[in-house]
């Protein structure tokens, strides 16, 4: 499998082709987004960005955490293919103390809701439509607790009409002289009918900074991947939880193959990079990052949770700044896989920035844009693409804000304004944008897989909600198609039902439900 990983030859690209370096134009000054993630020690982590379509106009709107500043919602007014344009809107989300933000349709009413991760009480905010929200902790039975919440993921467990939320918590903020080893409990908010039951502590907890429900072994039941900050735990490690319906959560064990890994875990990104049907995982850390792939996939039976680190082999590295004269080790936060040049190969963006002013780590730490080559390796292009910003970056979101088929970028910075870039790449490949929807519960089909037949291989994206660093995307998922003008596409829905393969024209956005496919004008 390893050989296949590196030796993959893609027919969508001519062999030996140069990687197309995308071009991004920074439009921070004109895009109408004005947000600073502020605060001192209690806000050294967090600073998330979330996307959602809160006004049903098929554009990705933005919510940005503000730390001690109120969180803000920005309505997307970007013309198709035009400059990025957002308008701040009073939404009800203007809460202080917000570190993280994720959108999801909790009550399956077709209107996206929002969870705000905070210093103090977390908030479940019910979407009212037209980008308005109201507190719903009480009506939904959501116990927001009182902690330093820093990670989130959501899934719909089989047979449930209400989502299961995982919330990751960080240090006991009341500890000043000896805060190390004070990690507080993570929580699992499982359904109790059409509301949440009492949160279940996910002990042991090790200061989670990213969580992701993901079907890593394609069993049909997602597990909960937790990336933990070794700076603060004692006796801790990275974690993977079983979450079987009706059963208490339990950790994967060494006897099952799980191997201890201890990093400054800060963000999780997932993507099936080698087209074997199983996701790879990129884990951000300090001075090092991990790109994990399953060590072995048996011909019969499911794989064990044994992962190999192939970051070095694939040059998916971002251990120190690649420009500038500060060569101290880097600090990575949000990571997200997207195909930014539409060549059919998923690329990787990493938001970077010093925790505060740690002189042993780079103070000028450019964000990374790692472009995937046809041999499966990566090359750095952040500077050539124009996104090598040096702020204390934390959260980010990559989405096609102006609906031109090119992935744009927003980055949240600590103590400095958030930044936006419009992807202006010329001669990029073809693309496809897919928005899933289904009736009943789990309207956004979290847990589904979208498959795109590229001829020689199949691109797959698991529809997850969570991960990254303190924020994530909800809505359409993007595929680069290279030179292909149309592709067969199918969806494997969260209940395991595989939809039919259907040809779809490139350079289009489709809304796919189990019973229909609709092209968005």
């Amino acid at each position, binding site marked *: 499998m390893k050989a296949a990983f590196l030796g993959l030859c893609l027919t969508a690209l001519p062999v030996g082709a140069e990687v197309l370096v995308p071009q991004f134009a920074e439009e921070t000054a004109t895009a109408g987004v004005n947000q600073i993630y502020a605060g001192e020690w209690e806000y050294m982590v967090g600073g998330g960005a979330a996307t959602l379509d809160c006004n049903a106009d098929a554009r990705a709107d933005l919510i940005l955490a503000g730390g001690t500043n109120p969180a803000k919602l920005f309505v997307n007014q970007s013309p198709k293919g035009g400059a990025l344009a957002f308008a701040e809107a009073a939404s009800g989300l203007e809460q202080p103390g917000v570190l993280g933000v994720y959108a999801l349709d909790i009550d399956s009413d077709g209107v996206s809701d929002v969870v705000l991760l905070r210093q103090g009480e977390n908030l479940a905010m019910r979407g009212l439509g037209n980008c308005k929200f109201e507190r719903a902790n009480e009506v939904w039975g959501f116990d927001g607790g009182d902690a330093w919440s820093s990670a989130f993921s959501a899934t719909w467990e089989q047979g449930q009409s209400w989502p299961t939320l995982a919330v990751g918590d960080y240090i006991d903020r009341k500890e000043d002289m000896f805060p190390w080893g004070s990690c507080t409990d993570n929580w699992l908010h499982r359904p109790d009918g059409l509301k949440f039951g009492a949160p279940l502590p996910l002990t042991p907890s090790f200061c989670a900074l990213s969580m992701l429900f993901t079907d890593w072994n394609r069993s049909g039941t997602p597990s909960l991947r937790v990336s933990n900050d070794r700076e603060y735990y004692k006796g801790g490690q990275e974690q993977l939880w079983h979450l079987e319906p009706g059963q208490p959560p339990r950790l994967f064990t060494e006897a099952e193959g799980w191997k201890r890994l201890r990093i400054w875990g800060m963000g999780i990104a997932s993507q099936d990079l080698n087209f074997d049907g199983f996701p790879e995982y990129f884990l951000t850390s300090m*001075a090092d990052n991990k790109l994990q792939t399953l060590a072995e996939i048996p011909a019969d039976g499911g794989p064990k949770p044994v992962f190999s680190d192939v970051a070095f082999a694939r040059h998916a590295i971002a251990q120190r700044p690649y420009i500038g004269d500060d060569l101290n080790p880097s600090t990575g936060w949000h990571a997200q896989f997207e195909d930014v040049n539409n060549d059919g190969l998923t690329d990787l963006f990493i938001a970077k920035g010093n925790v505060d002013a740690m002189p042993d780590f780079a103070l000028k730490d450019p964000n990374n844009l790692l472009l995937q080559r046809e041999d499966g390796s990566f090359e750095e292009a952040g500077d050539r693409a124009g996104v090598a910003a040096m702020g204390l970056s934390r959260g980010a979101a990559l989405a096609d804000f102006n609906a031109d088929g090119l992935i744009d970028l927003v980055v949240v910075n600590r103590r400095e304004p958030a930044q936006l870039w419009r992807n202006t790449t010329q001669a990029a490949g073809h693309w496809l944008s897919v928005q899933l929807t289904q009736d009943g519960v789990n309207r956004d089909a979290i847990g589904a897989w979208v498959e795109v037949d590229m001829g020689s291989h199949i691109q797959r994206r698991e529809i997850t909600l969570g991960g990254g660093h303190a924020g994530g995307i909800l809505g359409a998922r993007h595929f680069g198609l290279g030179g292909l003008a149309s592709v067969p596409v199918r969806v494997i829905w969260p209940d395991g039902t595989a939809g039919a393969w259907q040809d779809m024209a490139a350079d289009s956005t489709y809304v796919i439900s189990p019973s229909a496919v609709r092209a968005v004008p």
Partner: protein
Amino acid sequence: MQRRQFLALTGASVFASALPAWAATDPRAVLFNWHKLVLELVRHTATYSPPVAARSFGYLGVAGYEAVASGAGLRSLAGQVNGLQPLPARDAGAYDEGVVLHAVLSEAVQVFFGNTGPTGQRAMAAMRDKLGARMRDGVAADVVARSEAYGLAVAQHIEAWSQSDGGALVKNMGFPRDWTLGKGPEHWQPTSLIVQQQAPLLPGWGNNRGFAMPVGMIPGAGEPPAYSEDPDSDFYKQALEVYETSKTLTDEQKVIARFWSDDPMLSPTPPGHWVSVTLEILQRDGSDLAHSADALARIGMGVADAFIACWHDKFVYDRVRPYTYIRRVIDPKWETLLITPPFPEYPSGHSTQSGAAAQVLTAMFGDTFSFDDATHVDDGIPARHFGSFWAAAEEAAVSRLYGGIHFRAANDNGLKQGAAVGDYINALKTL
């Protein structure tokens, strides 16, 4: 009892009225609490690999000792250890020894851990302010001012002394950005998939000035077995021993390997392990201030000098790790229990510094001094009991073989090298 709870209680001894062994203003509370914080800072400051951590323990130990010695009329280390000039004299007038010691350590810890992250900075500030307020409570203002001024002068003297030893500036967490690997199969090869660790840690550390080792007289570990891939050679046999041991590890051997693993960033490091042992003993036995300060100075200097000696030889011999050799010669799929450290194999750093620690602590406490080592209790690793310091050191050494990261010669000769280092520490005149 969890270590954190223990620390909280110790903190309470400073802040609460119900006090255990030492009173609220007992200077020992200052000494112990700052050293406990330092054990955490070592773990949570990225630059503090074991050699760098050991250096800080050495200087902080001397700083604490000199503060105590100047008030108790004890013999100074100035003129005994390399490069330390006589410390500032005290002015006439009364001093509060707790305030002096707190002023010394709050300044010195800030200096040696100035690069720590925001949480460490916050912790240092909290200890400086809260412990300082408690120590000043009830002490006349002029005495406080005089004591703090003197403490600051001592700390600044130590800091100035430390700047010339060659170890004051550590960049890129100690890894050179450019490095040429040795030619030939006997030489170290990177074993890590981390980019930064494709060069070895701190290749120049062996050139640093030590504390008690006379300059130019670093004790050597002796020649390692000659490199060979011949199955009849000593080298191959030692590799085979590592390999075969790894295949038959008992649960007890795994426990031992992990107990002494002492990984940087995930533990107080190997030198911190021995400082932790020393602290536990001093508190358990209610040692007085002078003996406590002396012990912490000696153990700190001992492990610091041991790392200099060890690192000197590591880069003289530049030897291949078992991971590289065994996968090349014996079994290409072999994996180690412990993560192989990113620097040459011979001699073993943990063994050398454990040998030095055992030699130093045995001289202070005796040949058959038994103790419980609870260094890793907070990490869920139970305490282990040892009948002597050398029993602990020997276990630390063989743990590296169980972990698959050292050949036997590196462990055995490392212990001997450490003992020779310890002899220099033991020759210092203090109490």
